[in-house]
């Protein structure tokens, strides 16, 4: 059991020193007594070495991409090039203040301008905003744009958004947040949108349709043209959840095949690190008719250089972030795109697709696969056999994988596949690493038959054994009890 940082605290110990006071007016003479804190915050009193040892020890308890395969379906855990990190830490970037005169921000604005343009080209959209700071905030921005479009057109009767049952949970949550009623669309036997069902759902109330393409089963929604004509016929807009863009870059441009608005997950597709849950960046691209609704400011280029453009403020949805989005994340994506070039971008998608299909081919005789056709960059296997034959759940399989040095795939998602194991190897994995992951999965399939008890017990070799999630809810313990 490792201590918390608070337990290393020793009265009088220091982690840093600050310069001596050059101006030493008593605080009591500057700020009224009633506003001054009576009792100091009980932060730890520790040395720098205490801090380093503690957090390095904690770091050893994590799985991370450089340690081993991280095949979290739909989360896209690819390798993050180290060059990005040395470049973004330049003091010419990390010390910039958002309210500096624009003339002193030209380098950064040029980068943002070029990134906007590159993402517009990759997506086939007319214009891109870099302001949203996460995929879900991108969704929110995109759906607000849909709402603004309908408001401008007097489409007050449009109150519903249709979302497939295979969609990410953020999609329905986003629509509710914007104020839309969510209507769920069934998937058909091929794992695509059920067109007949779609037709029965679409009416005058339909404001839009939110689709992930390729979808969360790893399948390309090949009826997109028909879907677009159905939705557009009632003046609905089609939103593309861009979480899976890394399967189609350089092959398909969403803006050219019927989608009106989409978000990018720069932290997935464009190799910015996930940081244990963020920061991310979720730029949004739109077709021409939706450009007036984009958040302000955009970055534009004029006679005197680059500037923050508020020209369309009157029609804009407003702002979703205090300033201009996550510059440091956007910069990493910029470097990545510059290094890939057009061929490299396509090659990323090709290898993501090849790696996923290769892994699927290695596993298909050992795990049930509900949609066996060729997949895009990810596929959904499941533990239905194992559950039925041996009483082994997908959770058991996932935990056993941790023992073998791999992170588990996404489990129990998408919701429409029982005991789902959603696998996304990504393009940065080599054939050998896919082979060894397949060996581990096949080994587990064998263990289900030979030693099912072992799987119920797993994991055995991780820093802690199976964690009691139920207790974490029942006995809520959200903070360390500090001694006075």
């Amino acid at each position, binding site marked *: 059991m*490792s201590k918390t940082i608070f337990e290393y605290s020793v009265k009088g*110990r220091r982690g*840093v020193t600050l310069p001596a006071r050059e101006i030493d007016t008593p*605080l009591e003479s500057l700020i009224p007594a009633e*506003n001054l804190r009576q009792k*100091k*915050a009980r*932060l*730890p009193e*520790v040395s720098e070495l205490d801090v380093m040892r503690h*957090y390095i020890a904690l*770091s050893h308890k994590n799985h991370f991409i*450089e340690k081993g395969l991280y095949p979290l379906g739909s989360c896209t855990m690819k390798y993050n090039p180290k*060059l990005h*990190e040395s*470049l973004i830490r330049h003091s010419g970037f*990390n*010390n910039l203040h958002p*309210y*500096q005169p624009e003339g*002193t*921000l030209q380098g950064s604005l040029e980068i943002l301008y070029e990134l906007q343009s590159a993402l517009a080209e*990759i997506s086939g959209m007319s214009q891109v905003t870099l302001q949203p*700071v*996460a*995929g879900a905030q991108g969704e929110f921005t995109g759906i607000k744009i849909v709402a603004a479009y309908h408001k401008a057109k007097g489409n007050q009767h449009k109150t519903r958004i249709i979302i497939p049952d295979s969609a990410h949970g953020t999609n329905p949550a986003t629509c*509710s*947040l*914007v104020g839309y009623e969510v209507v769920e669309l069934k998937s058909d036997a091929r794992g695509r949108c059920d067109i007949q069902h779609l037709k029965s759902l679409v009416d005058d109330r339909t404001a839009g349709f939110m689709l992930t393409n390729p979808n969360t089963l790893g399948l*390309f929604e*090949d009826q*997109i043209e028909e879907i677009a004509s159905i939705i557009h016929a009632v003046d609905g807009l089609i939103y593309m959840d861009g979480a899976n863009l890394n399967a*189609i870059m350089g092959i*398909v441009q969403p803006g050219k*095949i019927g989608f009106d608005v989409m978000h990018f997950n720069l932290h997935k597709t464009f*190799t910015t690190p996930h*940081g*244990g*849950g*963020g920061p991310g960046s979720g730029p949004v691209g739109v077709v021409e008719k939706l450009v007036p609704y984009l958040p302000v400011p955009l970055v534009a280029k004029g006679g005197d250089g680059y500037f923050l453009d508020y020209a369309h403020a009157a029609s804009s949805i407003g702002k979703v*972030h*205090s*300033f201009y989005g996550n*510059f*440091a994340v956007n910069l990493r994506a910029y470097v990545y795109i*510059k*290094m*890939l070039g057009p061929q490299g*971008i396509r090659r990323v998608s090709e290898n993501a*697709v090849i790696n996923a*299909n*290769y892994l699927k081919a290695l596993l298909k005789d050992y795990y049930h696969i509900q949609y066996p056709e*060729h997949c895009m960059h990810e596929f959904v296997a499941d533990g239905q056999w194992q559950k039925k034959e041996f009483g082994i759940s997908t959770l058991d399989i996932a935990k056993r994988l941790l023992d073998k040095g791999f992170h588990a795939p996404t489990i129990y998602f998408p919701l429409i596949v029982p005991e789902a194991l959603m696998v996304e190897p990504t393009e940065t994995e*080599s*054939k050998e690493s896919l082979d060894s992951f397949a060996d581990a999965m096949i080994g587990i399939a064998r263990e289900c038959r030979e030693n099912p008890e072992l799987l119920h017990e797993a994991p055995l070799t991780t*820093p802690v*054994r199976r*964690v009691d999630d139920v207790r974490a809810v029942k006995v809520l313990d*959200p903070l*360390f009890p500090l001694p006075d």
Partner: protein
Amino acid sequence: MPYISNTDAERREMLGRIGVSSFEELIASIPEKLRLKQPLALDEPLSELEITRLINERVSGNFCAQSANSFLGAGVYDHFIPAAVDTIVSRPEFFTAYTPYQAEVSQGTLQFIYEYQTMICELTGMEIANASMYDGASAIAEAILMAARKNKLLKAILPATLHPEYVKVISIYTEGIGVELLTCPAKDGVLDIAALRGMMDESVGSVVVQTPNFYGNIEPVQALDGIVHSNPKCLLIAAVDPISLAILTPPAVYGADIAVGEGQALGNSMYMGGPLFGFFATKLDMARMMPGRIVGGTLDKEGKRAYALTLQAREQHIRRAKATSNICSNQSLCTLAATVYLSLMGRECLVEAATQSAQKAHYLASELAKVPGCGLAYPSAPFFKEFVLKTKLPAERIISEMLDQSIYPGVDLQRFGHQNELLIAVTEKKTKARIDEFVAAMRELNHE
């Protein structure tokens, strides 16, 4: 450089194992006519050496706050960051990990979030904190939404002294569920308590206060509990500067139900305004209504202490359309920086940073007030590290003249509708010499 391991020969071998003869066969499900016929119109790829050169060229187009003598704040602050923060944050073990969905191999991330939650609760005096929001603005917006979920009252009062950019973000977030936003006017740079009292009734679901406020002034927070809770259902939301909490009264003490704020100043670089992170803390009885992720302590199957994401039933991946929020990614790495920062600064040094910031800001304010043509815009309001200077010359002119001397004298409040006013921030990083330089430049400019 596409960062791909597989060679062409390996690709062929893998395609063979899959049972296709070409990549095109693999993507047969994409209708031919939907496919791009030509390569993307992007620049040709650069090598590591070339992109490094390009980025250095771009950097030379910037002039950063480190080289300049900057007094810019207004939500993003240049506080001191100990070197060890970046050493920890850059560790791939933290940097390239994902959201801790598999707790057994994510104890490092889960435990630092638990420590972070504890520190935020300690600073604010609240009972539970989440693992972070996108920024201070979205944190306030989510707080208003949470209040509306709790008391079903769709009216929120925002102070006229709230950061104007936050107001824009809040309005876009709260519009969808029909929250009506009212503005409580300001008087002498702080919110008008009498006006707030007049606006309160049983239909008000939440009242927001930002302290120190956008103008740097400390709000009369002692009066708020009685006024806001005159409607017992109404929640008081305090948006606070976390550095200030080392020396200023914590929100729980003056009756806040939710404490939120911008956390960037805690160990995170400015990066032109992003990444930022929002902190969010409240009382235990609202735990199930909170947005975002929460880490809880628990046990593993051998009874050992362990950590896990908890109360996930509130979240979008389970409750979908009924979730408390759509937030999925948060700003975890920024909170790691904050956790390490707060550990290093500790009980005493955070107080020292806050104290020196206040002392230096007050020194600058009093020196500038002596310059002919200058005066404090709100001489009666107490402030922490930021204040508004009223000037005879247009702020725009002061900014452009001082640029030649590499001084960023503050934020021109013209963009927020205030003529001839500069919002000036000082942190502990400023030396007396640099402050005096600014005063001298101001004096010279006003003597012309």
